[in-house]
């Protein structure tokens, strides 16, 4: 473990982005992700990159639009209210089929709320808070190591499918330090023949999300987008199973609440209760099929969230049997309590 280092989740995201070759980062300050811009402000100039503090979240996401349109790997980060402001921009990026990475370290809402970690922007992330038939690939890491690894992966996914990829963390994950190993660059490269580079020797490239005549263009465009989305659903689902082989009870949780659930499972297993964890690592595409299979073998499926019930809809869509699905959530920046999870699962035992 000698190559392990201790870093805040937020800083790990920054360093991982640089490892992934990201040299253009635009953001506006907001707690609890301020360490990302602070880190980038220090590090990017050292590697010849551009850190720019935008005048607002709207400007930041549109600078990302510009840098991505130019062919560069571009990233922005924010937290809940700031991500709300970026929705129009994200919709435009999706519409223009541009790749980019967006980091959201969720905090308590609605409105100004508070700055403690939260998971109450699941809907916003997975259903698109912006307008139109589009999707954002959403990854939910649960440790600093995963934050770093998934950041590198996010850039590849974004470039491969030419879509926005969101790293959905929360304030706790961003603020906590944990030992981790710096990820390796993937080594993958991507051609971007569509990039705006000056039209030398070719016809002009145009980046747009407008499709004026509905008949001829916008529907066709959307159906093409849909094809990409289906490809992603087929190929990019990520999840983790923990002690599910014999599980009678399945806890479904992601990110920080999955960590806490895992601890609770440790305790419950000591009591001999057969409980395991199903942890989606991609929230869109969601591992519906895989969860369905797991839940078919289980007596009860408990969803644990730091919200009043958002991912649980995806769980219900997967399980298709509401009587099997239970929910435990904390809101407003509060963490689920391990004892509470234990109590719930014990109660199923009968």
């Amino acid at each position, binding site marked *: *473990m000698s190559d*392990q280092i*201790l870093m805040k989740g937020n800083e790990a995201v920054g360093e991982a982005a640089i490892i992934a070759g990201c040299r253009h980062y635009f953001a506006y300050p907001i*707690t*609890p992700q301020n360490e990302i811009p602070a880190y980038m402000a220090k590090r990017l100039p050292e590697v010849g990159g551009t850190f720019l503090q935008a005048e607002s979240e709207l400007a930041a996401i549109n600078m990302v639009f510009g840098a991505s349109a130019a062919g560069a790997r571009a990233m922005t980060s924010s937290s809940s209210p700031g991500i709300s402001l970026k929705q129009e921009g994200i919709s435009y990026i999706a519409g223009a089929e541009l790749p980019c990475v967006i980091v959201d370290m969720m905090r308590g809402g609605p409105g100004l709320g*508070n*700055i*403690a970690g939260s998971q109450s922007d699941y809907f916003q992330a997975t259903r698109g808070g912006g307008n139109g038939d589009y999707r954002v690939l959403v990854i939910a890491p649960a440790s600093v190591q995963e934050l770093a690894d998934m950041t590198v992966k996010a850039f590849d996914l974004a470039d491969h499918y030419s879509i926005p990829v969101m790293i959905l963390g929360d*304030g*706790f994950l961003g*603020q*906590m*330090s*944990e*030992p981790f190993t710096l990820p390796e660059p993937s080594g993958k490269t991507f051609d971007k023949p569509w990039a705006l580079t000056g039209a030398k020797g070719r016809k002009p490239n145009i980046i747009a999300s407008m499709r004026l005549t509905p008949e001829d263009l916008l529907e066709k465009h959307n159906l093409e987008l849909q094809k990409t989305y289906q490809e992603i659903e087929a190929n990019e689902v990520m999840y983790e199973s923990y002690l599910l082989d014999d599980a009678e009870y399945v806890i479904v949780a992601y990110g*920080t609440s999955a*960590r*806490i*659930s*895992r*601890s*609770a499972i*440790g305790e419950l297993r000591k009591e001999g209760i057969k409980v395991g964890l199903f942890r989606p690592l991609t929230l869109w595409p969601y591992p519906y099929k895989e969860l369905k299979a797991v839940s078919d073998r289980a007596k009860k499926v408990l969803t644990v969230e730091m919200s009043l019930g958002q991912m649980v809809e995806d769980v219900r869509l997967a399980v298709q049997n509401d009587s099997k699905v239970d929910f435990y959530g904390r809101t407003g*920046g509060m*963490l689920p*309590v*391990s004892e509470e999870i234990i109590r719930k699962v014990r109660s199923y035992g009968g």
Partner: protein
Amino acid sequence: MHEEIVVAGFGGQGVIMAGKLLCLAAMKEGKHVSHIPSYGAEMRGGTANCSVVISDDPIGSPVVPHPTIVVAMNGPSMRKFEPRLKKGGLLLYNSSLIDFKPERDDIEVIAVKANDIAEDEGSKMAANMAAIGRLQAAKPDLVSLDNIIDALKIAVSKRNQKHNEVNIKVLKKANSSTT
């Protein structure tokens, strides 16, 4: 081994750094660690604290609502965290600055004159080292003193490496003191 520690004091007492130091030392021993500063409310003002978990198992929540160990570097911190301490937990407090006594009798209590020790050894700034040194003596399973000293190399920024000699003196002095 599983300890949930809160280190608390006012800004400038180096409580965040003290927490990191424990983590880095425990990492050397192959333990699982997590560290999270308090940032609960977008509030200004003097107090600072961090939560540290050191464990043989993977760590669930890095946030510590009911610590097993509290290191309180000033009065307001002790007032805030003493009640949250788990039954049987350890309260280690800086008696150089705290002139009142803990109230609970279901906990272990250690008073350490952290500022005095630090000043005696030549650095007003190293009270945090005194607290950590004393804590190690009380909880030798947590991390070894050697690893703490070793971890200083990474924990302390380049600019402040020059203070490490004093830091080590303070760590050792507090570690061997029984007050």
